[in-house]
């Protein structure tokens, strides 16, 4: 191999290693990490995370199984529009979510269903794959708001349907499998 090319490759790989380490340090300082979950499991879940779209899951790959897991809890962070599903301290899944709650602790109820309709603040909205949480809250996927179909990245939309956590259709359908009594913490 040409001597110049050899030196160039070594130099470039050295620089790449430095930049990769910098990238990891910058990411670890981001506000996407929560103290309740381990760093490793959160990093793995964040690697699988893709851009929000109402029609597809928030993460690449298969949904993790929720069966036989006794330490499941859900943490919602409205600042990041993210919903973390944890088993003890291990983050199983991170979902994009529009969180319309003030900070509080809730629990998943037994009631769940296919379609729902809300009227509040003069806004009418319909949703699918709903799960009842707390006294009058819902985990659901928005279908229409004021007769307008919700498309694409719903997280950045400006509407607010009170006491709801709005997820993509597939995420909402998967979260219907959460056992009754699962704790949800809104930060």
């Amino acid at each position, binding site marked *: 191999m*040409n001597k*110049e*090319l050899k*030196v*160039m*490759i070594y*130099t*470039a*790989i050295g*620089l*790449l290693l430095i*930049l*990769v380490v910098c*990238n*990891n340090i910058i*990411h*670890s300082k981001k506000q996407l990490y929560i103290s309740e979950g381990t*760093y*490793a*499991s959160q*990093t*793995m879940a*964040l*690697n*699988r995370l893709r851009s929000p779209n109402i029609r597809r899951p928030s993460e690449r790959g298969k949904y993790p199984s929720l069966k036989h897991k006794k330490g499941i809890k859900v943490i919602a962070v409205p600042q990041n529009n993210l919903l973390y599903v944890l088993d003890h301290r291990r983050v199983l899944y991170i979902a994009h979510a529009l969180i319309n709650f003030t900070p509080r602790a809730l629990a998943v109820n037994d009631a769940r269903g296919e379609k729902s309709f809300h009227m509040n603040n003069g806004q009418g909205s319909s949703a699918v794959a709903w799960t009842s949480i707390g006294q009058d809250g819902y985990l659901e996927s928005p279908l229409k708001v004021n007769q307008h179909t919700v498309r694409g990245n719903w997280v950045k939309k400006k509407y607010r349907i009170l006491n709801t956590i709005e997820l993509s259709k597939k995420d909402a359908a998967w979260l219907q499998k959460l056992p009754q009594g699962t704790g949800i913490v809104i930060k």
Partner: protein
Amino acid sequence: MKGQITPHFVKHIVVTDIILLLALLGYNLLSWLIPVNRIRLGAGILMFVIIDTCLVIIKLVNNFNFGANR
């Protein structure tokens, strides 16, 4: 400067970039198995720009002659 940036050197840059691209793809595959942050498209492009700029600067400054006998 024109004398330093020859077509031969540009070819070397392209070869280096291809090797780096393969290294980055390998790293991103590894990120599915071990907890390291995946390099996303924007960050990847930025890294390539920085590395290529550094290579051109080194070529212009000392023509890749490192060591005591340069």
